């Protein structure tokens, strides 16, 4: 009973508060050992969903180590919100020749 109540309160809180991670506005597909689209241009605070369409596992790993999906198996996905402007290069830890970029500019007006 208590557990149910807590769950209900938690759900209500989640609905009421502004979600820090808005629904992904952008999707990057990983297919045939490549990320697309790249470079991806977004604004600060926006969220990107990465989906692995390959039969091989891949990762989305920032060159500056600021983010890392760890292993994404086939059909695996991972979302990340970019909170700072900048150019973020990333690659696949398992296939380091796979490289791509997300360019984050200032807040969307």
């Amino acid at each position, binding site marked *: 009973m208590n557990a149910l109540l807590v769950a209900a309160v938690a759900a209500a809180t989640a609905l009421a508060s502004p979600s820090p991670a808005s629904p992904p506005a952008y999707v990057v597909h990983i297919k045939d050992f490549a990320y697309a689209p790249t470079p991806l241009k977004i604004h600060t605070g926006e969220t990107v969903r990465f989906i692995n369409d390959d*039969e091989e*596992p891949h*990762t989305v790993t920032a*060159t500056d180590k600021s983010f890392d999906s*760890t*292993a994404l198996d086939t059909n695996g996905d991972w979302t990340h919100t970019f909170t700072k402007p900048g150019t973020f290069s990333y690659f696949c830890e398992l*296939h380091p020749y796979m490289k791509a970029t997300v360019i984050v500019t200032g807040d969307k007006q």
Partner: protein
Amino acid sequence: MRRKDFIEHVSWTGAGIAWTLSASGLMTAGAEARAATGLTFVQISDSHIGFTRPENPDVTGTLQKTIDDINAMPVQPAFVVHTGDLTHLSKPAQFDTVKTMLGTLKAPVVVMPGEHDVIGSPDAYNAAFGTKEAPDGWHSFDRNGVHFVVLVNVFNFEIDGKLGADQLDWVKKDLAAQKTSTPIVVFGHVPLYALFPQWGWTTEDGAAVLAQLQRFDAVTVLNGHIHQIIQHTEGNIRFATAASTAYPQPAPGTADKPGPLLVPAPALLGVIGYRSIELASGPAIVQDRSLAAG
């Protein structure tokens, strides 16, 4: 000597190594178990526990068959070395499974990570297989007058095939202490030479180690990573990559990209397996065995 004959049975008395590998790749009945006068060990590789795709939906089953075949060898090997990619996705549960399975081998086990074992971080690998004696994984040991070197070429950020300055310093000192006549055997996951760099089948700074190995009379370098047997010779150094216990990969350049190669189910056991290496006083024997041969 015709090329085919050269590949099928070569005996180098100078370097002291004889391969018995078929021209077609895996297996030949070859010279069966000779009297065990020297040191015999077994290499297995690329078990990819956690892989579930059609290329091999039962990777635990094929690893188990490999273990059963090794445990049934009439003379047990001095040790079994696994040259990496124990797991597919570096998950703790996958490490638990493979560690439990390898623990059923009768012989002692030597392991090193592949790039699939350190995705995100080496923490899960180290939790399962790390030791205080070799915190970075690389180490060496001696058995029956043979010096064995275990290298780790998957820990470097952004480049799978790289050893790094610390490890190069260590291996230089380690090899400097060995006699020229001491047989040297080197293990590592990714091939130590530029086997096919287009697919990442190379160790970027491997040449620095190969330079250190040139002064020895006989060197054998055994790697995994590419899920197929490829032999190569550079002077005194014999290279051989191993078959996987899980699934094959395409020969270099025969596909758009590397990755699991689908073969008809009945043929799978013929292209995966393990190998035994005998280092006797005479020529050493490297013998690859498919799981279909057992």
